[in-house]
């Protein structure tokens, strides 16, 4: 049996394959934006030719796609029409009125995905209780549909006011359309997201409609090509929530599969952590242009219920939105900032050193890449400090010139500030860490979690270089760097499970909850979930259902997710929920309400998993020999590295990863592997654990 994961990113497509024989093979190729499946297919074809992939043995194909996100960002989706309640055709364009950065006169609001002339209001009204106040006007509906058809829309979104409470009018319009215009792709809000808040529901439904034809074509084409290659195993696709689904589902609800690559890394970190018995982790993924963090608590990545596609990157934007397209679907809660190896250092008018947000990108890239870049980047600083190999990276595939890095750092930063090159470089390294600490805090201390109680799990091309110094800055004592950190997101794909998320608004004061009605609501969702999973080929015993409720104090706008106790079904259930909520509110925000105040339920949620009996487990990965790794030629067995005033330049041993042992070695130490470099400062120790992870530990004082 063989499992294959392919993670398509904006720049690279990573393919990993693991078989029962414990062989992990990796291919990293340039992505092909015109048709992203080209890179996957050519990569796989070559791996089949080399014997790295066997068409007979391949049972699981797991895909993280970028096509959905890219379709929104490049605005290359379908021509969509929107049918909505009369008087509310502009809900989509008005949005929430907000801009993400104060005092910014240069702000541009993203154009609505459906222009106003394709947004049609129809007379009808349902109230918040679900009662029909005004009957649906069929003349309006027909006029609207004809107008949209005349304008050759390919896809129609339907989102009526209060349909979360009663979808009857949406259903009627959808039924009419499927008979009258069966060629049109439909996205109906009560199916996509039966949740309160008209703008968020409309936006989500419209994005679904916008990408649906494109994603469906892409997936069908990919399936066809893989089939022609002899790969007949079913494909599953990573969703933003971190669970995978079958392609049939993605073709219907592609909106759940936006941002699937970043989710895969967090899922992988959680799976590796669970395997090691480490349940509390902060995943840290740093690449060339951005760094991302995610909180994993009790072995599960934390979810957010809403995010934006195409917004600017900034921690503050978790509060101030408006720069992108809003999606209200469960997504792994990532804090993302524009800090990476390519971030450029500069001096402002107050004589202060700043890093980013400008990036040298891939072209010209850091000065040391010898492509004409002259600005000092974070990567240049790491070369000057001796952290990165002075001659080459990526196992020799990328030649670098330390002198160019030195010149860039000296000329643009060191000399103007009167600092030595190494102190300037250390300044750059430290400042970029301080911005990444904000991403760490955004997922932890913002909700009352002490980062010190979590282990930093570092991956991505630049993550392992910064992991230890970042951890120290954030008062975290333990760090894990998994094998193949540069393609870890693709490995995360292999560690994921099939999962569907369901949500239904169920808004009432806790004292007014009829537990039988609550049970029935969950029961209905479970029925749907079970049917879906059985349809996907899972057996009853493989289905795992978990119930949650969103709770809050009356009037609050953000909810706390509370797990439903397993067995309680009577009124004591409500007391258990209330206590659990008070406790979590206090943990997160430092207080509970004044005496005598009520608590309410807003939504009920169901997570439905299909557990495969022959799923790939971390064990397979950890036993895997790293076949793909060319032994790194250690031209130097040591080099000078700079660790600040306290230590100065130290002669630092450089180990290939394969030679690191299970007994701890005290830093300073540099560990090099094919796609990453790990820096261990003098105060820390490093060893390899039984599962082939590098573990770095600071002595706690």
């Amino acid at each position, binding site marked *: 049996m063989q499992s294959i994961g392919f993670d398509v990113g904006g720049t690279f497509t990573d393919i990993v394959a693991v078989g029962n024989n414990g062989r992990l093979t990796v291919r990293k190729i340039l992505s092909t934006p015109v048709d992203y499946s080209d890179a996957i297919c050519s990569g796989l074809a070559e791996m089949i030719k080399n014997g790295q992939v066997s068409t007979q043995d391949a049972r699981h194909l797991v895909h993280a796609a970028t096509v959905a996100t890219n379709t929104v960002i490049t605005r290359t989706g379908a021509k969509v029409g929107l049918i909505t309640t009369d008087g509310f055709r502009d809900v989509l364009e008005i949005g929430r009125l907000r801009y993400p950065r104060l005092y910014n006169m240069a702000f541009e609001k993203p154009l609505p995905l459906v222009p106003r002339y394709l947004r049609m209001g129809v007379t009808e009204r349902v109230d918040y209780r679900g009662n029909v106040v005004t009957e649906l006007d069929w003349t309006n509906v027909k006029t609207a549909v004809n107008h949209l058809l005349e304008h050759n829309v390919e896809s129609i979104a339907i989102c009526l006011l209060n349909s979360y409470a009663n979808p009857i009018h949406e259903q009627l319009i959808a039924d009419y359309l499927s008979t009258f215009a069966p060629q049109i792709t439909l996205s109906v809000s009560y199916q996509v997201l039966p949740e309160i808040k008209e703008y968020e529901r409309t936006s989500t439904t419209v994005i679904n409609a916008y990408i649906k034809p494109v994603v469906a074509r892409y997936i069908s084409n990919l399936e066809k090509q893989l089939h022609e290659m002899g790969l007949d195993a079913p494909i599953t696709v990573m969703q933003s929530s971190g669970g995978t689904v079958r392609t049939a589902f993605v073709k219907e609800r592609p909106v759940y599969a936006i941002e699937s690559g970043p989710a895969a890394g967090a899922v992988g970190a959680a799976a590796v952590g669970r395997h090691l018995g480490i349940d509390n982790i902060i995943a840290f993924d740093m690449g060339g242009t951005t760094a991302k963090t995610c909180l994993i608590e009790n072995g599960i990545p934390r979810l957010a219920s809403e995010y934006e596609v195409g917004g600017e990157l900034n*921690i503050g934007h978790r509060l101030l939105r408006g720069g992108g397209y809003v999606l209200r679907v469960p997504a792994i809660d990532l804090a993302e900032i524009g800090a990476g190896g390519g971030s450029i250092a500069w001096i402002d008018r107050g004589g202060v050193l700043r890093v980013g947000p400008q990036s040298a990108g891939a072209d010209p890239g850091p000065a040391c890449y010898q492509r004409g870049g002259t600005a000092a980047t974070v990567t240049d600083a790491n070369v000057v400090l001796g952290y990165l190999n002075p001659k080459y990276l990526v196992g020799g595939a990328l030649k670098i010139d330390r002198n160019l890095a030195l010149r860039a750092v000296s000329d643009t930063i060191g000399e103007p500030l009167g600092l030595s090159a190494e102190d300037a470089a250390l300044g750059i390294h430290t400042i970029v860490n301080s911005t990444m600490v904000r991403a760490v805090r955004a997922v932890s201390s913002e909700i009352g979690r002490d980062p010190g109680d979590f282990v930093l799990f570092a991956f991505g091309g630049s993550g392992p270089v910064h992991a230890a110094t970042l951890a120290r800055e954030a008062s975290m004592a333990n760090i894990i760097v998994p094998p193949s950190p540069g393609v870890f997101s693709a490995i995360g794909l292999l560690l994921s499970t099939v999962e569907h998320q369901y949500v239904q608004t169920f808004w009432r004061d806790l004292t007014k909850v009829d537990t039988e009605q609550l049970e029935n609501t969950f029961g209905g969702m479970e029925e749907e979930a079970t049917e879906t999973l059985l349809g996907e080929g899972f057996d009853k015993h493989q289905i795992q259902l978990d119930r949650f409720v969103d709770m809050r104090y009356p009037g609050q706008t953000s909810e706390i997710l509370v797990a439903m106790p397993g067995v309680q079904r009577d009124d004591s259930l409500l007391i258990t929920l209330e206590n659990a909520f008070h406790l979590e509110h206090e943990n997160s925000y430092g*207080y509970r309400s*004044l005496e005598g105040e009520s608590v309410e339920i807003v939504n009920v949620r169901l997570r439905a998993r299909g557990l495969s009996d022959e799923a790939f487990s971390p064990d397979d990965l950890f036993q895997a020999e790293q076949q793909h790794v060319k032994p790194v030629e250690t031209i130097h067995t040591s080099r000078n590295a700079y660790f600040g005033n306290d230590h100065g330049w130290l002669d630092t041993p450089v180990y290939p990863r394969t030679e690191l042992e299970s007994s701890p070695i005290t830093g300073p130490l540099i560990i090099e592997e094919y796609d990453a470099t790990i820096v261990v400062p003098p105060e820390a120790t490093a060893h390899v654990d039984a599962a082939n992870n590098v573990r770095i530990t600071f002595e706690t004082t």
Partner: protein
Amino acid sequence: MPNANRDPIKIELLKNALTAIADEMAVTMVRTARSLPIKEALDFSTGLLNADGALIAQGLCLPLHMGSFPPTMKCILADYKDDILPGDVFATNDPYLGGGTHLPDIYIFVPIFMSDTLIGFAATIGHHTDIGGRVAGGNACDNTEIYQEGVRIPPLKIAKEGQLDEMFLKLMRANVRVPQKVLGDIMASIAACRRGESGLQALADRYGVAALRASTLDLIDYAEELTRAELLELPDGQWEFEDFLDDDGFQENPIRISATLMKTNDELTVDFRGTDPQVKGSINMPFSFTVSCVYACIRSVMDPSIPNNEGFFRPITVIAEPGSFVHCTHPAPVAARGLGASRVTDCVWGALAQMLPDKVFACCVQGDYGVTIAGYTDDGAPFVSLEFLFSGWGGRPDKDGIDGLSSLAVNYSNTPVEILEVEQPLRIERYQFRADTGGAGKFRGAVGLEREYRLVEANEAVLQVRGDRHKFGPFGLNGGKAGANASHLLNPDSDSPSVPPGKFMMTLKKGESFRAQLAGGGGWGHPFERDPASVLDDVLNEKVSLECALEEYGVAIDSVRMAVNEEETMRLRKAACA
């Protein structure tokens, strides 16, 4: 000149750390607050001050709060100088006794200690849903003295040794209409300040108290230097601008705001002398709020990465006559001073537009609209629905004004219709753009919005509206036309709709409806210079009518083919030039 002794790395690390703390405070506030103005509109701010009360960081959610902490902090320090202890919490909301700007904005200060040494304060401002007084919501424009406007909280110690004062809570519970929301928001504010407290303590622990103090003072100097460097690059000179509020709701006559901008080297002054005297109705501006308005406008033409601290204020001077509309004196009413602020900011931007014609926009729609509907539901529960409405931006020197966006002065959000319908006994009947309201121009101003409320689950309610721009539309620039005026309609679907004035209060009966029709943004550049293709696009999208295209823009559109009649358009535009 940069300070030669400055540590170029440490200052950046400190700035990042302080910003992170102020942001965390803001997150705590928004995630746990109860009332719409704070949780949805983000009408609040968080800040950190040093032991002397100098602002060292501000987590901004509302642009107009720039500069709001120092005046209130000064009042707290004056009253409690020798009585500030660990576990204390201070509060005030009063414009005359506490340095506040209107009563619904409650300020909370938590002193921060390292053992026994006071090292600073964590602070929040939050706009509360109700503050008692004669009109629910605290934003009436027809109060005539501060005493009608709600509970005045002079600088008060509301907690000792970490325990909230029961007397304060009792007094507030008895005086506000929705105590669970108001007290819930105060709890959220204190929780946010506690985050600020532990954050600053952690920094003091790391840097040492004295070193932290020295570094934060340098951070203030650094912000001042960046501000001065920016100012130096702006042209020197003097520019005047005036704009008008329709009236104060009592007298018919308009209220003139006059701003003179003077810039020399690295200093800038805004002089409001020439502005009309304070008025009877409650739209007057306390001077501290006028100053905040100026800071917000100036910041919008500068590098956004200048740290938000005291240093930014230093090169900027604001002058106003006491007793004038922009510097009202006790006991002038100020509840709806947000309306005054919208015109003051319009006016300062109008002056800035002359200094920087390639950068500053025509007039935005600044939140001239406050709609409060309050009373008791059919179930007997009290309710207060409070909303401020916005349309969008004025035409820009190179692009249209953005439709459907908060103003640059106030980054408000709107309330989801579906949430409002669950929480209030109201139904929203429409929320959409108004065609032909965007100021015509080479770059069109934003179209206005309309929102209609119907009372459905209460027998009657007080409807109080604070409206403006019914007589003076948002100005255009460089030949662009003003945006369409705002207007109201009562019972628009009945046989006898009526048109109330801009500012009014009345009883709304079950089944009745009120429609607010907002102004459009001002246009930029002459409308006849507008690309006919853009006019066609607006017509296709029903933001501009065929008639308006013809009359305002001189663009003839064939309504059957939906295409521009090039020849006729050329002829029309030529004729207009001649």
